[in-house]
């Protein structure tokens, strides 16, 4: 959960007095499905980064090229768009969903991680 402030600490009227503070708002608590990254299958095409409606895909630039490095779960809402657009989610021959062990992103119920 984000750190929630008490009424004495907040600006009045629900005003936002600090531009760009949405990044303090950790929307990851909404998630019911969690995208799990399987780097061995990733081809670093950056489709997931491009389509993620938040900024939950972690990218590292290596030799001028972007590399997928997993997720920032503070912001990932679990919408599943990344898994949907990932080319590794589809079997290139059958055009059917690829088996889980071949995918770069697998969506799992958040309850699997309840212990964390």
């Amino acid at each position, binding site marked *: 959960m984000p750190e*929630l*402030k*008490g*009424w004495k600490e*907040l*600006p*009045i*009227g*629900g*005003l*936002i*007095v600090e*531009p760009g503070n949405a990044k303090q708002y950790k929307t990851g608590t909404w998630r019911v499905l969690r995208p799990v990254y399987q780097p061995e299958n990733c081809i670093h095409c950056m489709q997931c980064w491009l389509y993620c409606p938040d900024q939950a895909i972690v990218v590292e630039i290596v030799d001028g090229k972007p590399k997928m490095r997993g997720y920032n779960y503070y912001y990932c809402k679990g919408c599943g768009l990344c898994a949907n657009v990932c080319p590794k989610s589809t079997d290139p021959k059958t055009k059917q969903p690829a088996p889980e062990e071949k995918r770069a992103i697998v969506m799992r119920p958040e309850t699997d991680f309840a212990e964390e």
Partner: protein
Amino acid sequence: MPAKQALTGAEAIAYAMKQINPDVVAAYPITPQTPVVEYFAKYVADGVVDTEMIPVESEHSAMSACVGAAAAGARAFTATAAVGLALMHEIVYIAASLRLPIVMAVANRALSGPINIHCDHSDAMAERDSGWIQLWAENVQEAYDFTVMAYRIGEHPDVRLPVMINFDGFIISHGVEVLETLDDDVVKSFVGKPIKMYSLLDTEHPVTYGPLDLYDYYFEHKRQQIEAMKHVPKVFKQVAEEFEKISGRKYDLVEEYMTDDAEYIMIALGSTAGTIKHTIKELRAEGKKVGLVKPWVFRPFPKFELQRILNGRKGVIVLDRSASFGAEAPLYEAVKSALYEVAVRPQLGSYVYGLGGRDITPAHIRQAFEDAFKGYLIADEERYLGLRE
């Protein structure tokens, strides 16, 4: 030099607003408020004020325009009545929630239906929980004085709330009375420059108004509004003290009239207080120990003042000019609840009167006092003055 003038309540409020010279006035005509903005429009047309006057298409828009203007840091004013206020309702809450010190004059009129244009307090009572400060004038003088004081109260950094000035429709709005007005420069320096906070036009400090506020923060923002209301009595008294220095007229949260030794006290809002004072004088001449308490401020409710004044009296009669269908009338309910804590509770009686502009006469007031003299006040019984059975 203060000047004596003979004005209607509507004219007096418009005159005070001329002296205040607000940045924005947005309004839609409605009886009996219309003359307020009509007189003000003349000041705009004559170029004696710098105000941007916005004739909008509805009261909902009038309050919306005031919200926008006040958020931008402008002094905004509107006036309305009855169904006009009801049509604003959504934005009335928003103005208070966004903590915008708008000033609105309400020429109190009965809410429809059946349609009626005359005075009662149902319009303002429908807004009593909206988060607005509610001031109630008894006459033209008080309507003028409260208009001069309103921005100082609402704009105070510990308050930041909108202020509603209630003045009985037709009785005050259209009745001509002699009042004392202050000089333009005295009003100007009393009101001063607007105290701006979080102004949208302050581009150095950008601010967002009205973002979505869900279960994680909405409650905290409501708590802040509750707190702001708690600061009003202190700020009202400060402003009233300063106002007394320029006008010689003394205001407080409630007015006490002949209460010192009074055994029986009547409580009422607005112009009826004048009729009650007249009746009290007659009853005093007959040796009856009677008095009046008139809340000048109804929101926040002056609970502690009423507890202090009413504790130990023989009888308290509360007059309401609006009904609460299925519950006790609003002023009565609040007084009764305040008296729960006092050491010696008086007998209590609830009298509803004057709905839809029905006249209230000294005979009606005397009738309620007579009930009290006989010890015939029943706390759980609502009675009606001037109603045909």
